[in-house]
């Protein structure tokens, strides 16, 4: 009913493409695998664009909306009521608004009203989540620092701990703006030291040193980081090729999708994708509503792309093949 002045949260054609053509088939397959519609948790935004696009695949929607004080609080309340109204207008049921800061909600398991959030349960004095789809938009970048700590990384770690026992799809949109804290750069460097594979080190070094944009660095680091975090909490992850795109307000974003499978056992779990394979995932780009294949790291094996994007529609795959043909012709 009312407009949302803060237009950076509105959708754009790139995001719409990703939601409908990239995420949808992944979620559809996962929902089929689970045998039930998915329970969404995350930052849907006041216009519920993602939720509307995926409505056929969703059962419950837990949308986290900030709940600040003062003038900012007025915008937050407006966003909350807009989300509720949007759900009503689109006849989307089971939408809950979780009031609070997303990182704090994940870290504590409770909302700003001190209540355990919907879709969570208390067992052995620990709050577990049962969401099957987690969608986080880190508009401020993954390295956002609050109160002296990297709360987003902490929140992601806690998310995996709370999701114990529940398989889920983890969608992560990260703004490259805030860059990567040194700690994360060092993490990749340490990884290189511990992996004597010369090809891995060579590729990793290229990502750390390249001048093509921070999105490449994010593409290299985030899948390896998420894999490492997930494995500690007994999850095996499969990372889909990262997508770079320009979001609203010209924000440079990278879109990651992980399929996270929980395994019972006390020992460390190992994902099927090795760090080297993760590094060898292509960075794809969505521009003006089209999927394009930008420059990849040296010695990148283009022959693997077909399998990595087999979930996409035939027309999009054909489009990618044409682009590959051009690359081969040039080379």
């Amino acid at each position, binding site marked *: 009913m009312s407009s949302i002045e803060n237009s950076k949260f509105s959708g754009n054609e790139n995001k719409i493409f990703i939601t409908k053509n990239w995420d949808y088939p992944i979620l559809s397959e996962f929902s089929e695998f689970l045998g039930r519609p998915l329970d969404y948790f995350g930052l849907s935004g006041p216009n519920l664009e993602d939720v509307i696009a995926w409505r056929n695949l969703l059962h419950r929607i837990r949308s986290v909306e900030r709940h600040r004080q003062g003038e900012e609080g007025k915008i937050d309340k407006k966003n909350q*009521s807009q989300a509720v109204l949007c759900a009503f207008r689109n006849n989307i049921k*089971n939408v809950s608004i979780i009031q609070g800061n997303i990182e704090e909600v994940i870290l504590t398991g409770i909302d700003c009203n001190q209540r355990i959030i919907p879709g969570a349960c208390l067992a052995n004095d620990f709050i577990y989540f049962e969401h099957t789809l987690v969608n986080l938009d880190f508009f401020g970048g993954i390295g956002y620092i609050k109160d002296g700590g990297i709360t987003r990384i902490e929140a992601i770690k806690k998310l995996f701990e709370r999701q114990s026992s529940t398989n889920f799809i983890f969608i992560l949109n990260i703004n490259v703006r805030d860059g990567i804290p040194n700690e994360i750069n060092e993490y990749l460097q340490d990884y290189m030291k511990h992996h004597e594979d010369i090809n891995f080190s060579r590729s990793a070094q290229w990502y750390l040193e390249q001048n093509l944009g921070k999105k490449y660095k994010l593409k290299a680091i985030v899948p390896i980081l998420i894999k490492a975090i997930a494995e500690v909490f007994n999850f095996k992850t499969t990372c889909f090729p990262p997508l770079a795109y320009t979001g609203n307000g010209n924000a440079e974003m990278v879109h990651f999708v992980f399929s996270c499978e929980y395994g019972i056992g006390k020992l460390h779990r190992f994902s099927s994708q090795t760090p080297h394979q993760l590094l060898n995932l292509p960075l794809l780009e969505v521009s003006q509503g089209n999927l394009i294949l930008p420059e990849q790291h040296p010695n990148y094996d283009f022959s693997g792309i077909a399998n990595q994007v087999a979930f996409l529609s035939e027309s999009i795959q054909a489009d990618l093949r044409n682009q590959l043909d051009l690359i081969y012709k040039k080379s």
Partner: protein
Amino acid sequence: MWRKMQLDPRIENLENASLGEVISLPVFEDDIGAGLVPTLSRGLYTNPFDCIREYVQNSVDSRARNVSVKATGNSVYIIDDGFGMSVSEIISARKLGVSEKDMRFKVGFRGIGIYSAAAFCKKIVISSKKKGDEKTYVFTLDCEEYFKAIPRPDNIDKIDKVSLSKALEKATSFTVEVSFLEEDQGTMVQLEEVSTFFMQAFQDENELKRYILRNLPIDFHEDFEYKSLINEKIRSLDPSYNPITLSLELDHSESVNIFRPIIPNLDTPNFKEIKDELGNTMAICWGCLHKPSDGKRGKIPKKFSDFFGFVYKYKGFTIGTNNDLKPIFTTGSGTLFEWYTGEVYVVDIKIIPDAPRSGFESNETYKYFYKKVEETLRSYQSEAEKYRGHERALERLNEIKNNLQSWKIEFGQQDLFRIAEINSLLRNQKASLTTIKLELSPEMVKDAEAVEEEINGFSRKIEIFRKKKNSETRKSASQNPEDENPRNDDSQNNTSSTESGQNTQDSSSKSTLEKPDSVSTIAARSKIPLSTGAKEFIEVVDRGLKLYLGEETDEYKALIKFLSTRYS
């Protein structure tokens, strides 16, 4: 305050008035204090859910078809797809105790409903948009700000008393927002930062659902077979009748669309109109009698207890509870009330619901109306009584039919003792049928008459059989007059003939007149004039003695000897 009072011109006016002079004094703004809103909202809306009813009333008045009640985070939302409010309407909505609604078509008419949640939340935000309008109008009541203006016992001296209009002016605001979707229409009421008490009440899904079903104009379920019939009938008398579909969404439970439940085995609704002395309709009543086909007649199943009997409805909203009308059903402590589900739907606007919707304002029209309600509901009661009588009679008729079948089977076994019993029972059943026929419907009376005819036929068959048996007994007695010790043989023959239905001439060649070997033969020989019934009874006694004592026992023989001596 003291100075203000001194400056009040009305004091001087009154002081200077001559004796007996009637003076009209003006009412100043300060005369109506800000405390009126909490007094009204707390006093009228004792149940926290009452405010939901008040906002849904506005939705119904704006012809909404779908309403959503949602509690999430610390907010409660009531959203509808009604016509929405124009700029002038949203400004009018702030008015307190002033309603521009036409009572003929609208349910809310007191102009206080939008303040009903003031005591439960920090802010009430009402956003409304009309179809085709590019703008959304938003009215905000900052309840926290408003309540600051009201003195409490602990700070009565610290706060300047504020007039109602000043407090409202300070605590309310209007904004205009741009809408992207021109085609959208509707109103959203958002209760922000709802108190913990209220929010906890909202977590009780069952109680909230029950309240909604009991009080709001919730439509029938699509599958309820009389939905259209009832809705159309009501709408023909009250065009403003607008039952809604309400979806209830709470954080920790599944979202549900609320409909009136389908009560199984309801009979076609019986409509009755209540009219005033001029013949104008005051109310339309409908009642569905519970008529289960499995023979378990009686009240509506307990799980539908909220829908037992009749309840007042006004523009689809419930007035009072169904217990209010139960005392009219006097038969059997009102048992038959629970055999019905129905409504007394008031259409006469002179019958005015009170503000808490717990009853009607008392006036002459209402008194007349109530009498008519009593008459009408009593007629429903007598129809239920008639139905109950019919069902009972039907049960009895079926019982008789079943008995008749089993007796016919027993008759084939030719047990004289049992046949005598059956004959007597048949006479009783025939007498019962006379009463049963009075309770039955004409088509079922035919059925009862057929049963009666069957009984008559069966009785005749028994009579023929008994006559035949008597004649056989007499014949066998006359053919065996010399038998010295006839008792054992005779008794055996009697048994044999009874069981086989054949005449055993050799063994029955004993004279019952000369050889008193049984009570029957003693009685026959005694020449005492006995009726057929008495003779049958003696036969029964005779057989009983033989069975109980045994024919060969000294006890039996002594008894026979005694009787023989006594009656020879």
